[in-house]
Protein backbone atom coordinates (compact mmCIF):
# COMPACT_ATOMS: atom_id res chain seq x y z
CA UNK A 1 0.00 0.00 0.00
CA UNK A 2 2.55 2.49 1.09
CA UNK A 3 4.82 2.42 -1.98
CA UNK A 4 1.91 2.71 -4.40
CA UNK A 5 0.38 5.69 -2.56
CA UNK A 6 3.73 7.46 -2.44
CA UNK A 7 4.12 6.82 -6.17
CA UNK A 8 0.69 8.38 -6.73
CA UNK A 9 1.66 11.40 -4.76
CA UNK A 10 4.86 11.74 -6.76
CA UNK A 11 2.88 11.54 -9.99
CA UNK A 12 0.91 14.67 -9.20
CA UNK A 13 2.56 17.47 -11.16
CA UNK A 14 3.89 20.14 -8.84
CA UNK A 15 2.49 23.53 -9.77
CA UNK A 16 5.18 26.03 -9.03
CA UNK A 17 3.45 29.06 -7.60
CA UNK A 18 5.29 32.22 -6.94
CA UNK A 19 5.18 33.05 -3.28
CA UNK A 20 2.33 35.43 -2.69
CA UNK A 21 3.02 38.52 -0.64
CA UNK A 22 0.73 41.46 0.07
CA UNK A 23 3.00 43.77 -1.94
CA UNK A 24 3.07 41.43 -4.92
CA UNK A 25 -0.73 41.12 -4.79
CA UNK A 26 -1.03 44.87 -4.58
CA UNK A 27 1.24 45.32 -7.61
CA UNK A 28 -0.78 42.73 -9.54
CA UNK A 29 -3.99 44.65 -8.77
CA UNK A 30 -2.35 47.96 -9.54
CA UNK A 31 -0.89 46.85 -12.86
CA UNK A 32 -4.30 45.61 -14.02
CA UNK A 33 -5.70 49.12 -13.52
CA UNK A 34 -5.02 50.91 -16.81
CA UNK A 35 -5.91 54.35 -15.50
CA UNK A 36 -3.53 53.96 -12.54
CA UNK A 37 -0.74 52.85 -14.87
CA UNK A 38 -1.39 55.96 -16.95
CA UNK A 39 -0.94 58.01 -13.76
CA UNK A 40 2.31 56.17 -13.01
CA UNK A 41 3.58 56.87 -16.53
CA UNK A 42 2.81 60.59 -16.20
CA UNK A 43 4.55 60.74 -12.81
CA UNK A 44 7.62 58.83 -14.06
CA UNK A 45 7.73 61.12 -17.12
CA UNK A 46 7.87 64.25 -14.97
CA UNK A 47 10.38 62.68 -12.56
CA UNK A 48 12.65 61.86 -15.52
CA UNK A 49 12.15 65.38 -16.82
CA UNK A 50 13.25 66.76 -13.46
CA UNK A 51 16.29 64.45 -13.16
CA UNK A 52 17.47 64.96 -16.73
CA UNK A 53 16.65 68.69 -16.82
CA UNK A 54 20.24 69.95 -17.31
CA UNK A 55 20.74 67.53 -20.23
CA UNK A 56 17.45 67.92 -22.07
CA UNK A 57 16.74 71.65 -21.64
CA UNK A 58 17.07 73.18 -25.12
CA UNK A 59 18.22 76.52 -23.65
CA UNK A 60 19.53 77.83 -20.34
CA UNK A 61 16.34 78.38 -18.32
CA UNK A 62 17.62 81.66 -16.87
CA UNK A 63 19.18 83.12 -20.02
CA UNK A 64 17.41 86.33 -20.99
CA UNK A 65 17.26 87.58 -24.56
CA UNK A 66 15.28 90.78 -24.85
CA UNK A 67 15.29 90.59 -28.66
CA UNK A 68 13.25 87.41 -28.44
CA UNK A 69 10.78 88.49 -25.76
CA UNK A 70 7.17 87.23 -25.85
CA UNK A 71 7.69 85.14 -29.00
CA UNK A 72 4.93 82.65 -29.79
CA UNK A 73 5.62 78.91 -30.12
CA UNK A 74 7.98 78.26 -33.05
CA UNK A 75 10.57 75.78 -34.29
CA UNK A 76 13.26 77.46 -32.15
CA UNK A 77 11.14 77.89 -29.05
CA UNK A 78 8.54 75.11 -29.02
CA UNK A 79 6.48 76.68 -26.25
CA UNK A 80 7.44 80.31 -26.95
CA UNK A 81 9.35 82.77 -24.78
CA UNK A 82 8.45 84.92 -21.79
CA UNK A 83 8.79 88.65 -21.13
CA UNK A 84 12.56 88.35 -20.68
CA UNK A 85 12.93 86.25 -23.83
CA UNK A 86 13.58 83.09 -21.77
CA UNK A 87 12.60 79.77 -23.33
CA UNK A 88 9.37 78.54 -21.70
CA UNK A 89 9.97 74.85 -22.45
CA UNK A 90 13.35 74.99 -20.67
CA UNK A 91 11.77 76.79 -17.74
CA UNK A 92 8.98 74.22 -17.47
CA UNK A 93 11.52 71.37 -17.59
CA UNK A 94 13.64 72.99 -14.91
CA UNK A 95 10.53 73.98 -12.96
CA UNK A 96 9.65 70.27 -12.70
CA UNK A 97 12.67 69.93 -10.40
CA UNK A 98 11.39 72.51 -7.95
CA UNK A 99 7.73 71.45 -8.09
CA UNK A 100 8.45 67.75 -7.60
CA UNK A 101 11.13 68.33 -5.00
CA UNK A 102 8.79 70.58 -3.07
CA UNK A 103 5.88 68.12 -3.41
CA UNK A 104 7.91 65.15 -2.20
CA UNK A 105 9.74 66.92 0.62
CA UNK A 106 6.58 68.56 1.99
CA UNK A 107 4.84 65.22 2.16
CA UNK A 108 7.84 63.39 3.62
CA UNK A 109 8.09 66.11 6.28
CA UNK A 110 4.41 65.90 7.17
CA UNK A 111 4.45 62.09 7.16
CA UNK A 112 7.38 61.98 9.60
CA UNK A 113 5.95 64.54 12.00
CA UNK A 114 2.32 63.46 11.57
CA UNK A 115 3.10 59.76 12.02
CA UNK A 116 5.21 60.34 15.11
CA UNK A 117 2.52 62.45 16.76
CA UNK A 118 -0.30 60.17 15.59
CA UNK A 119 1.46 57.04 16.85
CA UNK A 120 2.14 58.60 20.25
CA UNK A 121 -1.47 59.78 20.54
CA UNK A 122 -2.93 56.44 19.47
CA UNK A 123 -0.61 54.21 21.49
CA UNK A 124 -0.38 56.09 24.77
CA UNK A 125 -3.92 57.53 24.78
CA UNK A 126 -5.02 59.55 27.83
CA UNK A 127 -3.59 63.08 28.11
CA UNK A 128 -1.03 62.53 25.34
CA UNK A 129 -3.91 61.76 22.99
CA UNK A 130 -6.00 64.66 24.27
CA UNK A 131 -3.21 67.21 23.80
CA UNK A 132 -2.12 65.97 20.37
CA UNK A 133 -5.66 65.52 19.07
CA UNK A 134 -6.61 69.05 20.17
CA UNK A 135 -3.57 70.43 18.33
CA UNK A 136 -4.73 68.57 15.22
CA UNK A 137 -8.27 69.94 15.68
CA UNK A 138 -6.97 73.49 15.94
CA UNK A 139 -4.79 73.17 12.84
CA UNK A 140 -7.70 71.62 10.93
CA UNK A 141 -9.96 74.47 12.01
CA UNK A 142 -8.22 76.74 9.52
CA UNK A 143 -8.81 76.48 5.80
CA UNK A 144 -5.49 74.92 4.79
CA UNK A 145 -4.22 77.47 2.27
CA UNK A 146 -5.11 80.26 4.69
CA UNK A 147 -3.03 78.64 7.42
CA UNK A 148 -0.18 78.26 4.95
CA UNK A 149 -0.45 81.94 4.07
CA UNK A 150 -0.38 82.83 7.77
CA UNK A 151 2.76 80.74 8.30
CA UNK A 152 4.50 82.33 5.33
CA UNK A 153 3.39 85.77 6.54
CA UNK A 154 5.23 84.98 9.79
CA UNK A 155 8.36 83.39 8.35
CA UNK A 156 8.70 85.62 5.29
CA UNK A 157 8.03 84.83 1.65
CA UNK A 158 10.41 82.33 0.08
CA UNK A 159 10.29 78.79 -1.26
CA UNK A 160 11.77 77.19 1.86
CA UNK A 161 9.13 78.78 4.07
CA UNK A 162 6.35 77.89 1.64
CA UNK A 163 7.55 74.30 1.88
CA UNK A 164 7.49 74.39 5.68
CA UNK A 165 4.00 75.93 5.61
CA UNK A 166 2.59 73.24 3.33
CA UNK A 167 4.25 70.51 5.39
CA UNK A 168 2.70 71.90 8.59
CA UNK A 169 -0.84 72.09 7.18
CA UNK A 170 -0.64 68.43 6.13
CA UNK A 171 0.60 67.15 9.50
CA UNK A 172 -2.85 66.73 11.12
CA UNK A 173 -4.18 64.75 8.13
CA UNK A 174 -1.46 62.12 8.50
CA UNK A 175 -1.54 62.32 12.28
CA UNK A 176 -5.26 61.54 12.48
CA UNK A 177 -5.00 58.80 9.90
CA UNK A 178 -2.22 56.95 11.69
CA UNK A 179 -3.80 57.54 15.10
CA UNK A 180 -7.01 55.78 14.10
CA UNK A 181 -5.03 52.95 12.52
CA UNK A 182 -2.87 52.55 15.64
CA UNK A 183 -5.98 52.42 17.82
CA UNK A 184 -7.14 49.31 15.96
CA UNK A 185 -3.71 47.71 15.44
CA UNK A 186 -2.73 47.99 19.11
CA UNK A 187 -5.60 45.67 20.06
CA UNK A 188 -4.25 42.89 17.81
CA UNK A 189 -2.98 39.73 19.46
CA UNK A 190 0.55 40.02 18.16
CA UNK A 191 0.94 43.34 19.95
CA UNK A 192 -0.31 41.79 23.18
CA UNK A 193 2.19 38.97 22.57
CA UNK A 194 5.01 41.46 21.98
CA UNK A 195 4.12 43.23 25.21
CA UNK A 196 3.94 39.99 27.16
CA UNK A 197 7.46 38.97 26.14
CA UNK A 198 8.68 42.28 27.53
CA UNK A 199 9.37 44.14 24.29
CA UNK A 200 9.87 47.86 24.90
CA UNK A 201 7.41 50.49 23.65
CA UNK A 202 9.81 51.97 21.10
CA UNK A 203 10.33 48.63 19.42
CA UNK A 204 6.60 47.80 19.48
CA UNK A 205 5.73 51.19 18.02
CA UNK A 206 8.27 51.35 15.24
CA UNK A 207 8.83 47.67 14.40
CA UNK A 208 5.30 46.36 14.70
CA UNK A 209 2.63 49.04 14.80
CA UNK A 210 4.09 51.44 12.23
CA UNK A 211 4.69 48.89 9.44
CA UNK A 212 1.18 47.52 9.96
CA UNK A 213 -0.35 50.98 9.65
CA UNK A 214 1.49 52.06 6.51
CA UNK A 215 -1.10 51.25 3.82
CA UNK A 216 -3.33 54.30 4.28
CA UNK A 217 -0.24 56.49 4.67
CA UNK A 218 1.11 55.41 1.28
CA UNK A 219 -2.23 56.10 -0.41
CA UNK A 220 -2.80 59.39 1.36
CA UNK A 221 0.86 60.37 0.77
CA UNK A 222 0.56 59.94 -2.99
CA UNK A 223 -2.61 62.02 -3.12
CA UNK A 224 -1.04 64.59 -0.78
CA UNK A 225 1.89 65.11 -3.17
CA UNK A 226 -0.67 66.21 -5.77
CA UNK A 227 -2.25 68.69 -3.36
CA UNK A 228 1.14 69.91 -2.11
CA UNK A 229 2.26 70.69 -5.67
CA UNK A 230 -0.87 72.79 -6.23
CA UNK A 231 -0.60 74.49 -2.84
CA UNK A 232 3.04 75.47 -3.28
CA UNK A 233 2.26 76.70 -6.78
CA UNK A 234 -0.59 78.72 -5.26
CA UNK A 235 1.75 80.32 -2.71
CA UNK A 236 4.26 81.12 -5.46
CA UNK A 237 1.41 82.51 -7.55
CA UNK A 238 0.55 84.87 -4.68
CA UNK A 239 4.20 85.93 -4.47
CA UNK A 240 4.67 84.05 -1.18
CA UNK A 241 6.71 81.11 -2.49
CA UNK A 242 9.53 80.94 -5.03
CA UNK A 243 11.27 84.25 -5.66
CA UNK A 244 13.40 85.21 -8.68
CA UNK A 245 15.64 83.74 -9.99
CA UNK A 246 14.04 80.45 -8.80
CA UNK A 247 11.79 79.00 -11.44
CA UNK A 248 8.59 77.42 -10.22
CA UNK A 249 5.44 76.72 -12.24
CA UNK A 250 3.29 78.83 -9.90
CA UNK A 251 5.67 81.75 -10.21
CA UNK A 252 5.69 81.39 -14.00
CA UNK A 253 1.91 81.73 -13.92
CA UNK A 254 2.12 84.78 -11.67
CA UNK A 255 4.57 86.41 -14.08
CA UNK A 256 2.32 85.59 -17.04
CA UNK A 257 -0.72 87.39 -15.59
CA UNK A 258 0.08 90.73 -17.17
CA UNK A 259 0.77 89.25 -20.61
CA UNK A 260 -2.54 87.41 -20.90
CA UNK A 261 -3.60 89.37 -24.00
CA UNK A 262 -0.24 89.58 -25.77
CA UNK A 263 1.26 86.22 -24.93
CA UNK A 264 -1.25 83.63 -23.65
CA UNK A 265 1.31 80.82 -24.10
CA UNK A 266 3.24 82.16 -21.11
CA UNK A 267 0.17 81.21 -19.05
CA UNK A 268 -1.16 78.10 -20.83
CA UNK A 269 1.89 75.80 -20.69
CA UNK A 270 3.03 76.15 -17.04
CA UNK A 271 -0.59 75.58 -15.97
CA UNK A 272 -0.82 72.48 -18.16
CA UNK A 273 2.38 71.18 -16.56
CA UNK A 274 0.90 71.59 -13.07
CA UNK A 275 -2.38 70.00 -14.10
CA UNK A 276 -0.77 66.98 -15.76
CA UNK A 277 1.56 66.29 -12.84
CA UNK A 278 -1.25 66.59 -10.33
CA UNK A 279 -3.49 64.40 -12.49
CA UNK A 280 -0.73 61.78 -12.61
CA UNK A 281 -0.39 61.66 -8.82
CA UNK A 282 -4.18 61.61 -8.38
CA UNK A 283 -4.64 58.70 -10.79
CA UNK A 284 -1.77 56.84 -9.18
CA UNK A 285 -3.12 57.51 -5.69
CA UNK A 286 -6.60 56.27 -6.62
CA UNK A 287 -5.04 53.15 -8.16
CA UNK A 288 -2.91 52.53 -5.07
CA UNK A 289 -5.95 52.86 -2.84
CA UNK A 290 -7.86 50.29 -4.86
CA UNK A 291 -4.84 47.97 -4.98
CA UNK A 292 -3.75 48.23 -1.35
CA UNK A 293 -7.06 48.50 0.37
CA UNK A 294 -9.99 47.04 -1.55
CA UNK A 295 -12.35 48.06 1.25
CA UNK A 296 -11.72 51.73 0.44
CA UNK A 297 -12.53 51.22 -3.21
CA UNK A 298 -15.23 53.59 -4.36
Amino acid at each position, binding site marked *: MAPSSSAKVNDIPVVKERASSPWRDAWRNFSKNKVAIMGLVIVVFFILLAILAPVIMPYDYAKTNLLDRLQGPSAEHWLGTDDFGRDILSRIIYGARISLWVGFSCVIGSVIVGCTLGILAGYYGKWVDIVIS*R*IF*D*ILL*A*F*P*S*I*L*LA*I*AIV*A*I*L*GPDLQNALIAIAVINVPNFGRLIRSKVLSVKEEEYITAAKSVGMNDFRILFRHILPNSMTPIIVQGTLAI*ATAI*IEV*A*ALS*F*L*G*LGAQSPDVDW*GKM*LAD*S*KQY*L*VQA*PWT*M*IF*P*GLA*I*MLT*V*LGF*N*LMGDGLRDALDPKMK*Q
Partner: protein
Amino acid sequence: MFAYTIRRLFMLIPVLIGMSILVFSIIYLIPGNPAQIILGQRATVEAIAQVEQQLGLDQPWYIQYFDYVGGLLQGDLGTSIKTKVPISNEIYPYLAATIELTVVAIIIAIVIGVNAGIVSAWLHNSWFDYIAMIFALIGVSMPIFWLGLMEQYIFSVQLEWLPSTGRYDASTVITPITHLYLVDTLLQGNMAHFWDVSKHLILPGLALATIPMAIIARITRSSMLEVMRSDFIRTARAKGLNSFWVVYKHSLKNAVIPVLTVIGLQTGLLLGGAILTETIFGWPGIGRYIYDAINYRDYPVIQSGILLVATIFVMINLIVDLLYAAIDPRITYN
Protein backbone atom coordinates in the same frame (compact mmCIF):
# COMPACT_ATOMS: atom_id res chain seq x y z
CA MET B 1 -30.01 65.57 19.77
CA PHE B 2 -30.22 68.53 22.17
CA ALA B 3 -27.57 66.99 24.43
CA TYR B 4 -25.38 66.32 21.43
CA THR B 5 -25.72 69.91 20.24
CA ILE B 6 -24.70 71.20 23.66
CA ARG B 7 -21.75 68.78 23.83
CA ARG B 8 -20.66 69.73 20.34
CA LEU B 9 -20.80 73.41 21.30
CA PHE B 10 -18.65 72.73 24.37
CA MET B 11 -16.14 70.88 22.23
CA LEU B 12 -15.79 74.04 20.17
CA ILE B 13 -14.44 76.02 23.11
CA PRO B 14 -10.91 74.53 23.22
CA VAL B 15 -10.69 74.79 19.43
CA LEU B 16 -11.70 78.44 19.46
CA ILE B 17 -9.23 79.17 22.31
CA GLY B 18 -6.49 77.35 20.40
CA MET B 19 -7.31 79.31 17.26
CA SER B 20 -7.14 82.61 19.13
CA ILE B 21 -3.75 81.66 20.66
CA LEU B 22 -2.39 80.65 17.26
CA VAL B 23 -3.57 83.83 15.57
CA PHE B 24 -2.44 85.96 18.51
CA SER B 25 1.02 84.38 18.30
CA ILE B 26 1.49 85.40 14.66
CA ILE B 27 2.95 88.73 15.69
CA TYR B 28 5.32 87.12 18.22
CA LEU B 29 6.60 84.52 15.83
CA ILE B 30 7.86 87.10 13.35
CA PRO B 31 11.65 87.02 13.58
CA GLY B 32 12.89 90.41 14.87
CA ASN B 33 10.95 93.37 16.25
CA PRO B 34 7.40 93.35 14.79
CA ALA B 35 7.06 97.14 14.93
CA GLN B 36 10.35 97.55 13.07
CA ILE B 37 9.27 95.02 10.43
CA ILE B 38 5.91 96.73 9.98
CA LEU B 39 7.48 100.16 9.58
CA GLY B 40 10.62 99.18 7.67
CA GLN B 41 14.30 99.81 8.28
CA ARG B 42 14.12 103.59 8.17
CA ALA B 43 11.52 103.97 10.93
CA THR B 44 12.27 106.41 13.72
CA VAL B 45 12.45 105.29 17.34
CA GLU B 46 9.31 107.35 18.15
CA ALA B 47 7.34 105.74 15.32
CA ILE B 48 8.40 102.27 16.48
CA ALA B 49 7.40 103.10 20.05
CA GLN B 50 4.02 104.36 18.82
CA VAL B 51 3.29 101.16 16.86
CA GLU B 52 4.46 99.07 19.82
CA GLN B 53 2.02 100.93 22.02
CA GLN B 54 -0.79 100.62 19.45
CA LEU B 55 -0.26 96.88 19.22
CA GLY B 56 0.20 96.60 22.97
CA LEU B 57 3.69 95.17 22.50
CA ASP B 58 4.97 97.09 25.52
CA GLN B 59 2.88 94.86 27.84
CA PRO B 60 3.70 91.32 29.05
CA TRP B 61 2.36 88.70 26.59
CA TYR B 62 -0.33 87.23 28.86
CA ILE B 63 -1.85 90.65 29.49
CA GLN B 64 -1.78 91.27 25.76
CA TYR B 65 -3.49 87.95 25.11
CA PHE B 66 -6.29 88.59 27.58
CA ASP B 67 -6.70 92.12 26.20
CA TYR B 68 -6.86 90.64 22.73
CA VAL B 69 -9.46 88.01 23.61
CA GLY B 70 -11.42 90.51 25.69
CA GLY B 71 -11.49 92.81 22.67
CA LEU B 72 -12.55 89.98 20.37
CA LEU B 73 -15.45 89.06 22.64
CA GLN B 74 -16.66 92.65 22.42
CA GLY B 75 -16.30 92.68 18.64
CA ASP B 76 -13.02 94.60 18.63
CA LEU B 77 -10.83 93.16 15.90
CA GLY B 78 -8.02 95.70 16.31
CA THR B 79 -7.06 98.66 14.15
CA SER B 80 -5.61 98.48 10.66
CA ILE B 81 -2.09 99.90 10.46
CA LYS B 82 -2.63 100.92 6.84
CA THR B 83 -5.99 102.69 7.03
CA LYS B 84 -5.92 103.51 10.78
CA VAL B 85 -9.60 102.46 10.86
CA PRO B 86 -10.93 99.84 13.34
CA ILE B 87 -11.03 96.54 11.43
CA SER B 88 -14.56 95.77 12.62
CA ASN B 89 -15.73 98.96 10.86
CA GLU B 90 -14.16 98.19 7.51
CA ILE B 91 -14.23 94.40 7.25
CA TYR B 92 -17.93 93.86 6.54
CA PRO B 93 -18.04 94.90 2.83
CA TYR B 94 -15.09 92.56 2.15
CA LEU B 95 -16.76 89.74 4.04
CA ALA B 96 -20.03 90.29 2.18
CA ALA B 97 -18.20 90.16 -1.18
CA THR B 98 -16.62 86.83 -0.22
CA ILE B 99 -19.91 85.43 1.08
CA GLU B 100 -21.65 86.35 -2.17
CA LEU B 101 -18.92 84.74 -4.27
CA THR B 102 -18.69 81.62 -2.10
CA VAL B 103 -22.46 81.07 -1.96
CA VAL B 104 -22.74 81.40 -5.74
CA ALA B 105 -19.82 78.97 -6.14
CA ILE B 106 -21.30 76.38 -3.78
CA ILE B 107 -24.69 76.62 -5.52
CA ILE B 108 -23.04 76.06 -8.93
CA ALA B 109 -21.00 73.18 -7.47
CA ILE B 110 -24.02 71.48 -5.88
CA VAL B 111 -26.43 71.92 -8.79
CA ILE B 112 -24.02 70.77 -11.50
CA GLY B 113 -22.05 68.30 -9.33
CA VAL B 114 -25.04 66.47 -7.82
CA ASN B 115 -26.89 66.25 -11.14
CA ALA B 116 -23.82 65.10 -13.07
CA GLY B 117 -23.23 62.48 -10.37
CA ILE B 118 -26.83 61.25 -10.47
CA VAL B 119 -26.99 61.01 -14.26
CA SER B 120 -23.58 59.30 -14.32
CA ALA B 121 -24.81 56.69 -11.86
CA TRP B 122 -28.10 56.30 -13.71
CA LEU B 123 -26.36 55.87 -17.07
CA HIS B 124 -23.53 53.86 -15.49
CA ASN B 125 -20.73 53.00 -17.96
CA SER B 126 -22.29 55.10 -20.71
CA TRP B 127 -20.52 57.81 -22.70
CA PHE B 128 -22.06 60.46 -20.47
CA ASP B 129 -20.66 58.66 -17.42
CA TYR B 130 -17.15 58.44 -18.89
CA ILE B 131 -17.06 62.05 -20.07
CA ALA B 132 -18.47 63.40 -16.80
CA MET B 133 -15.94 61.42 -14.77
CA ILE B 134 -13.03 62.52 -16.99
CA PHE B 135 -14.12 66.12 -16.46
CA ALA B 136 -14.40 65.49 -12.73
CA LEU B 137 -10.90 64.02 -12.66
CA ILE B 138 -9.47 66.99 -14.54
CA GLY B 139 -11.46 69.30 -12.26
CA VAL B 140 -9.82 68.00 -9.08
CA SER B 141 -6.37 68.25 -10.66
CA MET B 142 -6.79 71.79 -11.93
CA PRO B 143 -5.09 74.67 -10.11
CA ILE B 144 -7.92 77.18 -9.75
CA PHE B 145 -5.62 80.13 -10.30
CA TRP B 146 -4.79 78.70 -13.71
CA LEU B 147 -8.43 77.98 -14.47
CA GLY B 148 -9.23 81.59 -13.55
CA LEU B 149 -6.60 82.93 -15.94
CA MET B 150 -7.79 80.59 -18.72
CA GLU B 151 -11.39 81.72 -18.20
CA GLN B 152 -10.30 85.35 -18.43
CA TYR B 153 -8.36 84.61 -21.60
CA ILE B 154 -11.19 82.71 -23.30
CA PHE B 155 -14.33 84.52 -22.14
CA SER B 156 -13.02 88.05 -21.59
CA VAL B 157 -10.10 88.50 -23.97
CA GLN B 158 -11.04 86.25 -26.90
CA LEU B 159 -14.84 86.06 -26.88
CA GLU B 160 -15.45 89.29 -24.94
CA TRP B 161 -18.58 87.74 -23.42
CA LEU B 162 -17.97 88.38 -19.76
CA PRO B 163 -16.10 90.98 -17.68
CA SER B 164 -12.79 89.81 -16.23
CA THR B 165 -12.49 91.81 -13.00
CA GLY B 166 -14.45 93.56 -10.28
CA ARG B 167 -17.96 93.17 -8.89
CA TYR B 168 -19.71 95.54 -11.33
CA ASP B 169 -18.98 97.93 -14.20
CA ALA B 170 -17.19 101.16 -13.36
CA SER B 171 -20.15 103.08 -14.83
CA THR B 172 -22.66 101.34 -12.55
CA VAL B 173 -23.52 102.99 -9.25
CA ILE B 174 -24.88 100.64 -6.60
CA THR B 175 -26.01 101.95 -3.23
CA PRO B 176 -25.02 99.23 -0.79
CA ILE B 177 -27.67 98.00 1.63
CA THR B 178 -26.48 94.51 2.57
CA HIS B 179 -23.27 94.71 0.47
CA LEU B 180 -24.44 91.49 -1.17
CA TYR B 181 -24.94 93.20 -4.51
CA LEU B 182 -27.20 90.53 -6.00
CA VAL B 183 -29.57 91.12 -3.09
CA ASP B 184 -29.11 94.90 -3.10
CA THR B 185 -29.88 95.29 -6.80
CA LEU B 186 -32.96 93.09 -6.40
CA LEU B 187 -34.13 95.09 -3.38
CA GLN B 188 -33.75 98.25 -5.45
CA GLY B 189 -35.60 96.58 -8.30
CA ASN B 190 -32.85 97.49 -10.76
CA MET B 191 -32.66 94.54 -13.14
CA ALA B 192 -29.99 96.13 -15.35
CA HIS B 193 -27.67 96.37 -12.35
CA PHE B 194 -28.66 92.88 -11.20
CA TRP B 195 -27.65 91.50 -14.61
CA ASP B 196 -24.39 93.47 -14.46
CA VAL B 197 -23.54 92.05 -11.01
CA SER B 198 -24.53 88.52 -12.14
CA LYS B 199 -22.28 88.75 -15.20
CA HIS B 200 -19.34 89.70 -12.98
CA LEU B 201 -20.03 86.73 -10.72
CA ILE B 202 -20.02 84.03 -13.42
CA LEU B 203 -16.28 83.65 -14.09
CA PRO B 204 -14.99 83.83 -10.50
CA GLY B 205 -17.95 81.74 -9.30
CA LEU B 206 -17.24 79.05 -11.86
CA ALA B 207 -13.50 79.03 -11.11
CA LEU B 208 -14.14 78.68 -7.40
CA ALA B 209 -16.84 76.02 -7.95
CA THR B 210 -14.77 73.70 -10.13
CA ILE B 211 -12.96 71.59 -7.54
CA PRO B 212 -15.94 71.12 -5.18
CA MET B 213 -18.13 70.41 -8.21
CA ALA B 214 -15.79 67.66 -9.38
CA ILE B 215 -15.57 66.11 -5.91
CA ILE B 216 -19.33 66.32 -5.35
CA ALA B 217 -19.97 64.68 -8.75
CA ARG B 218 -17.61 61.79 -7.94
CA ILE B 219 -19.01 61.18 -4.46
CA THR B 220 -22.64 61.50 -5.58
CA ARG B 221 -22.02 59.00 -8.36
CA SER B 222 -20.38 56.43 -6.11
CA SER B 223 -22.92 56.72 -3.30
CA MET B 224 -25.81 56.64 -5.80
CA LEU B 225 -24.39 53.49 -7.40
CA GLU B 226 -24.28 51.85 -4.00
CA VAL B 227 -27.83 52.88 -3.12
CA MET B 228 -29.24 51.92 -6.51
CA ARG B 229 -28.03 48.35 -6.03
CA SER B 230 -29.89 48.01 -2.74
CA ASP B 231 -33.04 45.97 -2.18
CA PHE B 232 -35.49 48.79 -1.60
CA ILE B 233 -34.64 50.34 -4.98
CA ARG B 234 -35.17 46.97 -6.66
CA THR B 235 -38.55 46.77 -4.89
CA ALA B 236 -39.46 50.27 -6.02
CA ARG B 237 -38.61 49.34 -9.59
CA ALA B 238 -40.49 46.04 -9.30
CA LYS B 239 -43.56 47.95 -8.16
CA GLY B 240 -43.42 49.73 -11.48
CA LEU B 241 -42.22 53.17 -10.41
CA ASN B 242 -40.60 54.91 -13.34
CA SER B 243 -36.82 55.29 -13.40
CA PHE B 244 -36.80 59.06 -12.97
CA TRP B 245 -38.88 58.86 -9.80
CA VAL B 246 -36.77 56.05 -8.38
CA VAL B 247 -33.55 57.91 -9.00
CA TYR B 248 -34.53 61.33 -7.81
CA LYS B 249 -36.79 60.55 -4.89
CA HIS B 250 -35.69 57.27 -3.45
CA SER B 251 -32.00 57.11 -4.22
CA LEU B 252 -31.04 60.72 -3.80
CA LYS B 253 -32.53 60.85 -0.32
CA ASN B 254 -30.20 58.05 0.69
CA ALA B 255 -27.16 59.39 -1.03
CA VAL B 256 -27.41 62.79 0.57
CA ILE B 257 -25.30 62.07 3.68
CA PRO B 258 -21.94 61.49 1.98
CA VAL B 259 -22.67 64.42 -0.29
CA LEU B 260 -23.41 66.62 2.72
CA THR B 261 -20.10 65.59 4.30
CA VAL B 262 -18.24 66.62 1.17
CA ILE B 263 -20.06 69.91 1.02
CA GLY B 264 -19.07 70.59 4.64
CA LEU B 265 -15.45 69.72 3.94
CA GLN B 266 -15.38 71.74 0.75
CA THR B 267 -16.32 74.95 2.53
CA GLY B 268 -12.75 75.21 3.79
CA LEU B 269 -11.47 74.69 0.29
CA LEU B 270 -13.89 77.34 -0.98
CA LEU B 271 -12.93 79.88 1.67
CA GLY B 272 -9.23 79.22 1.01
CA GLY B 273 -9.77 79.19 -2.74
CA ALA B 274 -11.52 82.52 -2.45
CA ILE B 275 -8.14 84.16 -1.73
CA LEU B 276 -6.75 82.92 -5.04
CA THR B 277 -9.90 83.61 -7.03
CA GLU B 278 -10.24 87.09 -5.58
CA THR B 279 -6.64 87.92 -6.44
CA ILE B 280 -7.12 86.93 -10.08
CA PHE B 281 -10.52 88.52 -10.59
CA GLY B 282 -9.85 91.72 -8.63
CA TRP B 283 -12.72 90.72 -6.32
CA PRO B 284 -12.71 92.97 -3.24
CA GLY B 285 -13.35 90.13 -0.76
CA ILE B 286 -11.81 89.07 2.52
CA GLY B 287 -9.15 86.99 0.76
CA ARG B 288 -8.00 90.03 -1.16
CA TYR B 289 -8.16 92.06 2.09
CA ILE B 290 -5.81 89.59 3.83
CA TYR B 291 -3.56 89.32 0.78
CA ASP B 292 -3.14 93.10 0.56
CA ALA B 293 -2.48 93.20 4.31
CA ILE B 294 0.36 90.67 3.89
CA ASN B 295 2.01 92.87 1.28
CA TYR B 296 1.62 95.87 3.60
CA ARG B 297 2.62 93.90 6.71
CA ASP B 298 -0.63 94.99 8.32
CA TYR B 299 -0.53 92.28 10.98
CA PRO B 300 -3.73 93.19 12.87
CA VAL B 301 -5.67 92.78 9.60
CA ILE B 302 -3.91 89.48 8.83
CA GLN B 303 -4.74 88.19 12.33
CA SER B 304 -8.37 89.24 12.38
CA GLY B 305 -9.03 88.24 8.78
CA ILE B 306 -7.65 84.75 9.32
CA LEU B 307 -9.46 84.33 12.64
CA LEU B 308 -12.76 85.43 11.14
CA VAL B 309 -12.53 83.08 8.16
CA ALA B 310 -11.47 80.17 10.41
CA THR B 311 -14.37 80.87 12.78
CA ILE B 312 -16.83 80.84 9.88
CA PHE B 313 -15.30 77.55 8.71
CA VAL B 314 -15.64 75.95 12.16
CA MET B 315 -19.26 77.13 12.45
CA ILE B 316 -20.19 75.73 9.05
CA ASN B 317 -18.69 72.37 9.99
CA LEU B 318 -20.71 72.43 13.21
CA ILE B 319 -23.92 73.12 11.28
CA VAL B 320 -23.15 70.31 8.83
CA ASP B 321 -22.56 67.91 11.73
CA LEU B 322 -25.87 68.86 13.31
CA LEU B 323 -27.67 68.59 9.97
CA TYR B 324 -26.66 64.93 9.66
CA ALA B 325 -28.96 63.96 12.46
CA ALA B 326 -31.75 66.16 11.17
CA ILE B 327 -31.59 64.65 7.67
CA ASP B 328 -30.83 61.02 8.42
CA PRO B 329 -32.96 59.53 11.22
CA ARG B 330 -30.64 56.49 11.32
CA ILE B 331 -27.93 58.63 12.87
CA THR B 332 -28.36 59.02 16.60
CA TYR B 333 -26.04 60.70 18.99
CA ASN B 334 -25.62 59.23 22.40
